[in-house]
């Protein structure tokens, strides 16, 4: 979780320093969702990610160097600089890619689960998406098929309370969980700031899905510390600073886990500080590496439109 937080802090700084092309969407505040779920997965299990996807990538095994290189459009990035922040794919770790169309990966994730079923493999696919994506029709089409065919997929709805610049109450009628239940899909609500609770639930559902008891749906209540994207700085028109501070001070997933570890005598405050400083140094090195890394050769512009047979 600290790796994700530190990654995002650095990415935000790259934006503020005008060193990063384009915009990016921060995962800070939602770390327990990606980590709690991906810790329940093995490498051959698949995930699909979203425009707010750095956390999913890191939790599924991505490394700092290739991540920062991709954010800066460098050739050593996960997609040779062709995808950028919103399209990081890392298939070696089972990450089928982030998606810049809200809800756009729901079909892909469900298709990956269909593939596993056809192959009689016990791999599970997790489809990450936000509360905003529950307004897309595709979700209901693929959940229907996943339920009909008992596919090994877990739909993980990160409900961070905001659909871009609009509160979830304004865009979602009724209950999101009940929508999944209408298809006969078992659906659960969990505190998305409590990584242990998330992991416990995810581990249980992943094991059930491996045995052919899928699909499942989880709504994870969480919060994004930043705006919709790094440029969304003046946001008091849709949410208060008080609300943001309340989540940061009282519901922070890293602090919640840290307190638990200290109370249980597993790690001391000093040890946790040490972990953070080691990760910060690694991130700084990776940022320096990426800033100095090469851009793709211009001959790559029309490469990879088609794969040669």
């Amino acid at each position, binding site marked *: 979780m600290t790796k994700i937080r530190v990654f995002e802090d650095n990415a935000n700084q790259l934006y503020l320093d005008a060193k990063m092309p384009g915009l990016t969407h921060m995962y800070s505040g939602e770390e327990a969702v990606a980590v709690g779920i991906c810790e329940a997965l093995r490498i051959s299990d*698949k995930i*699909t990610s979203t425009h707010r996807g750095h956390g999913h990538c890191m939790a599924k095994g991505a490394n700092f160097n290739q991540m920062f290189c991709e954010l800066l459009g460098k050739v050593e*990035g*996960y*997609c*040779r*600089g*062709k*995808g950028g922040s919103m*399209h990081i*794919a890392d*298939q070696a770790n089972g990450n*089928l*890619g982030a*998606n810049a*169309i809200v809800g*756009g*990966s*729901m*079909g*892909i*994730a*469900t*298709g*990956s*689960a*269909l*593939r*596993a079923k*056809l*192959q009689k493999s016990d791999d599970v*696919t997790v489809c990450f998406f936000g509360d905003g994506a529950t307004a897309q*029709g*595709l979700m209901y*089409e*693929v959940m*229907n*098929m996943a339920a*009909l065919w008992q596919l090994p997929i877990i739909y993980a709805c990160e409900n961070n309370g905001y659909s871009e610049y609009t509160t979830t109450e304004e865009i979602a009628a009724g209950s999101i969980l009940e929508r999944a239940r209408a298809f006969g899909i078992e659906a659960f609500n969990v505190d998305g700031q409590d990584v242990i609770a998330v992991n416990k639930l995810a581990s249980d559902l992943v094991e059930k899905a491996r045995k052919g008891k899928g699909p499942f749906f989880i709504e994870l209540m969480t919060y994004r510390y930043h705006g919709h994207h790094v440029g969304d700085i003046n946001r008091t028109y849709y949410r208060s600073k008080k609300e943001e501070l309340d989540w940061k001070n009282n519901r922070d997933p890293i602090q919640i886990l840290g307190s638990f570890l200290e109370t249980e005598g597993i790690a001391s405050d000093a040890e946790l500080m040490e972990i953070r400083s080691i990760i910060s140094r690694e991130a700084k090195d990776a940022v320096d590496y990426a800033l100095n890394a090469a851009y793709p050769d211009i001959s790559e512009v029309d*490469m*990879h*439109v*088609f*794969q*040669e*047979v």
Partner: protein
Amino acid sequence: MPEITLSQAVNQAIAEEMRRDSNVFLIGEDVAEAGTPFKVTSGLVEEFSTERVIDTPISEPGFMGLAVGAAMTGSRPIVDLMFGDFLFLVMDQLCNQAAKIHYMSGGKLNVPLVLRTNLGATRRSAAQHSQSLHALVAHVPGLKVAMPSSAYEAKGLLKTAIRDNNPVVIFEDKLMYQDKAFVPDEEYLLPFGEAAILKEGSDVTLIGTSSMRQVCERAAILLDKDGINAEVIDPRTIVPLDENTILNSVKKTSRAIVVDEGHQNFGTTAEIASRISEKAFYYLDAPVIRMGAMDVPIPFSPVLEDLTVPTAERVAENARKIVSGELVHAL
């Protein structure tokens, strides 16, 4: 060499490829026991079971998306889209997802899927079941587009499509499913990007896609009677497009008419005509003529619908004009 229908040719191509490669499966609405409304896939479910011939709910974006995900993880799905008009329903999954994934991932992921659908008017099906929308997908980098013009091409191009590692959209003319052609007994594949010269000629080049190939062939017979020797070319695939065969022909004949059933505005005819004008301009004796479907939603009434698509008579009429040197700016 047996003579089989286009529908049988498609069925054979799918069956042969499913036998050859267990990663191939068929998915779409009513593809199993029903065998599609056109009965193209009849019998496949008996051989391959419902595990590999998968009936879906009426959820085109949903099953298109499933196919993209299955293709990304090792399957080679054939998606049956009942009518070409439903392309508008699957555009995000096809054009924002399937077409771009290989490029966006820097070449790491690929999407080997085939989207089988159809085109063609004059079936009295009105504006939402009669469109020829291949130009829409041909516009999007990352998609290949095949347009078989008979049973022979339908089988050979579909088998190539299934083995391609990229998303391929293949358009069958729904009016041609019962049309017969000779198809070899032995296995064959037709390469993409290689046009066929169906008739050699010296006076004008007629380029016809899909069923417009037959329109051009009939026009050539009409022109023969007037002493005009037309060359007829079928591009077979429009992405990739065999530019060389077309340009070499036009350099020889100095005149070209491009015939296609998609709407004429911003269409396939415009693209091919413009490439000829750019690359063979100094060989031309007349403007390149485009003949696409009329730029109206396809009407239901037969007397109106028949006006909207190119006919052999109108192709021949235009050919006579440009061969005789008549001014054709007002066409």
